[in-house]
């Protein structure tokens, strides 16, 4: 019975194009339920549960090596790329579908759950083609559609004004702050329904960071955002909810203000008050 239900729900992901509209009407919150991940037999995530609510920002904080990136990777199936890593139990529900299910097409998951990495990377092509990289793979776009997607995504990531006159320049000529916004535009051009960001500002200067934060605040009006950050001030500034991971365990989570002002766990208190880390 349960297997039958699972196949039924995964079907919709497989045939997404035909049933897309009714699914899109469901709230886009993402639910992580008791997920356990092992990498070469070592437990990296231990029964982590959390929710990325629609139109809210969830910040994932915690010491290095606590499994923050692994959680992000599990959420859009980029975990499959790491040799030896697998989800041993638990599931991730998004629009009533279990993303961890092996029969779900991982490429479709990655397209719908967009991810921005820590290190911005310029593909060896023009700025415009960088933005269209995923789009061109997923569907045939006409010249006009392509131009529209490029303009829209670059405007969303706040880079349009800086590059609109040199869209055909190689992307490698951008500064690192611009490059990270290009990477965000590249992810947004794919039309994601959730945005995951893994320390997107760790390589950037405060001004670029400010621009990206501003952009995240705009983006959250249309989709859920999950951001991993080591910058506690940033987490406090932008997020609505906070998840504190420690050694693969979700030690504490809740509204950001509550986590920062009156955490229940001593370790969380030490961390957010700056006593450790």
């Amino acid at each position, binding site marked *: 019975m349960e297997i039958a239900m699972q196949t039924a729900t995964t079907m919709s992901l497989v045939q997404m194009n035909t049933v897309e509209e009714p699914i899109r009407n469901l709230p886009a919150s993402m639910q992580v339920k008791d997920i356990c991940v092992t990498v070469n037999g070592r437990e990296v995530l231990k029964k982590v549960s959390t929710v990325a609510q629609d139109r809210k920002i969830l910040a994932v904080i915690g010491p290095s090596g606590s499994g923050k990136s692994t959680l992000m990777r599990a959420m859009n199936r980029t975990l499959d790329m790491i*040799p030896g890593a697998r989800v041993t139990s638990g599931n991730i529900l998004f629009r009533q579908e279990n993303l961890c299910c092996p029969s779900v097409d991982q490429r479709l998951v*990655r397209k719908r759950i*967009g991810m921005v990495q820590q*290190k911005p990377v310029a*593909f*060896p092509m023009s700025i415009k083609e960088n933005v269209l990289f*995923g789009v061109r*793979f997923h569907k045939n776009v006409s010249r006009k559609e392509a131009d529209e997607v490029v303009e829209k995504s670059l405007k969303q990531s706040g880079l349009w004004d800086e590059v609109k006159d040199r869209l055909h320049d*190689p992307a490698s000529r951008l500064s690192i702050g611009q490059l990270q916004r290009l990477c965000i535009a590249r992810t947004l051009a794919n039309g994601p329904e959730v945005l995951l960001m893994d320390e997107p500002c760790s390589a950037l200067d405060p001004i670029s960071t400010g621009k990206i934060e501003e952009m995240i605040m705009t983006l959250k009006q249309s989709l859920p955002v999950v951001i991993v950050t080591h910058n506690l001030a940033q987490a406090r500034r932008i997020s609505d909810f906070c998840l504190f991971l420690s050694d693969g365990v979700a030690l504490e989570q809740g509204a950001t203000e509550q986590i920062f002002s009156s955490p229940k766990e001593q370790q969380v208190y030490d961390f957010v008050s700056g006593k450790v880390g």
Partner: protein
Amino acid sequence: MSIDNGQLTALLATSQTLSSINRGERWCDLFFRGLLWALGCLGFLLPAAIVGYLVIGGGSTLTWKFISDFPKGVPLGSTGGILPAIQGSLSLAVLGLCIATPLAFGGGIYLAEFARHSRFSQIIRFVIECLVAVPSIIYGLFGYAFLVVFFKFGISLLAGGVTLAMIMFPIMVIAVQESLQRVDDSYREAALALGVTTTYLVQRVLLPRAWPGIVAGMVLAVGHAVGSAAPVLFTASVYFTKGSPKLADPVMTLPTHLYHLVSEAISQEQAFGTALVLVLGFLIFNSSALMLRKLGSFSWR
């Protein structure tokens, strides 16, 4: 921050010991630099000396007539030109490249991207490394037994081209694989996170990034294959041909022509001229490959 006298004396003392340590280190560094400079010069002088010697010996032979005429004289080759040898070597190089390139790209891409970290890929890699180390005369013998005799290709351009392709293949596979593997993993992560396939990633990101390394490997492979006489000696080359090269017919090649001229003491000057043409040919080939390298990678980096 203020420093009192005691601290200052202590600081000076440490800086003095530091500089006395540095003195020994500095001499060592100077000596090492000098040694490396001399060895670096050797790397320049050796090829320069070879080319210089060839120019002195064959410079006067090298005329337009020499590269555009057929061998003449008695014994044949003592006067005249080396046109058929140039044509033969060129067509062998092109044929070998045409056969080896697609195969090597396929093999290299498979090993680097589709069979990453697998036991199978390690075994193949080991075998290919062994292939590179096989002397070219062995390829020549194999080409003769397998292509010329068994497949009845006869001594021909085709048999020689396939033999040269066999020499180029392992070098090029390794070049493709290594160049792809050197591309930082962050490119793979960023691309695959957008939900694209490995094929798309290879086509649009990895190959353009790896292009300079691949071209360098191809140049090495062609130079190695076309420059050696052994593989074509039994499979493709004859003493003299007339007319332009044809697939089923034997050809003359520069290295074997050089070999004949010297071993049968036909003409020292003609031999020097031939060697000079061979060397200059590679110089032109390498520099055009360098340009191709720049062209392929554009200014993306």
